[in-house]
């Protein structure tokens, strides 16, 4: 310790995406306020979690309102995953300053995020039971 020896940043103003990211968090948050509340109320309070069997999902996705449900689930997937993982990215940027670790963790985050996005999309669009 003693008189500071670390280097502090004095030049600010490099171009970056934080402004878009900040705005996106607000907009996706607003959208999700509506759809997640609905999802939560419907699945947990109306249908009840224990009744969400394979058959229940098949009926919903292939039923008369199948397209509406699939649209809603896709929106949940896209907004939830991007909003959530952007939040994790913010946390990594906040707390992990070692350049290498910061990069490794964020790369890992992007890879896992992409895999989940693809997995979710497959489940919704390929159809129940048809991935085997």
């Amino acid at each position, binding site marked *: 310790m003693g008189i500071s020896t670390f280097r502090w940043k004095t030049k600010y*103003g490099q171009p970056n995406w934080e402004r878009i990211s900040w705005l996106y968090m607000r907009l996706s948050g607003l959208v999700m306020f509506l759809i997640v509340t609905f999802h939560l109320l419907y699945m947990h309070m109306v249908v009840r979690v224990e009744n969400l069997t394979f058959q229940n999902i098949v009926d919903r996705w292939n039923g008369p309102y199948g397209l509406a449900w699939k649209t809603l689930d896709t929106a949940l997937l896209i907004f939830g995953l991007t909003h959530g993982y952007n939040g994790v990215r913010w946390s990594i940027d*906040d*707390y992990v300053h070692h350049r290498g670790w910061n990069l490794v963790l964020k790369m890992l985050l992007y890879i896992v995020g992409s895999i989940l996005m693809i997995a979710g999309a497959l489940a919704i669009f390929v159809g129940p039971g048809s991935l085997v």
Partner: protein
Amino acid sequence: MRVKMRIRRFNPEKDSKPWWGEYEVEVEPTDRVLDALHQVKWYQDGTLTLRRSCAHGICGSDAMVINGRNALACKVLMRDVGKVCVVEPLRGLPLIKDLVVDMEPFFAKYRAVMPWLVNDEIPDHGERLQSPEARERYDDTTKCILCAACTTSCPSFWANEHYIGPAAIVQAHRFIFDDRDRAAVERLRILNDRDGVWRCRTVFNCVQACPREIDVTKAIGEVKLAILEAL
């Protein structure tokens, strides 16, 4: 009233890490924490090191953590701190000795936002006139005394010392919304940095900490909206 002062001590030449010093003082309820610290320094332990100048809440040199919260030692009354008064140096800035921290990283950020009036036009009347309404627009942020209480109360700053911090944004706000100034866009560009305004998570610790009662988060919010509009 008798109060126990628990003070975070650190002497870089002797100590490997900070320790707690405990001192009993006899004070009036209307004395300030600064008076109690003076009592310790003047009559009990002359090695206690702290920074203060005006002792009237205007120079901004004695911001510290008092009972877990940032404040000016010269503005907090002993009757408001209770029987035990815990005093620590500001957080997130390099510790020099006892209650004195290195303010240079803080001032480096202050300088980064160009805290001066930029205007090369020749004024019409020999001086730049401004309407009371235009002056009112940024009145709140002119009150800042650069004590660093806000910046060092911010979780985003503790987490990342590169975050430019509320104080620098307050100082930028003071010029961005001054209609005589011509460098608003330049300052907004600076504050649009990765470590600029977007690291603010509206925690409001700065508002609570500011001894000048500046609505710091409002100033930051206005700067954010100005960036969204201007860039």
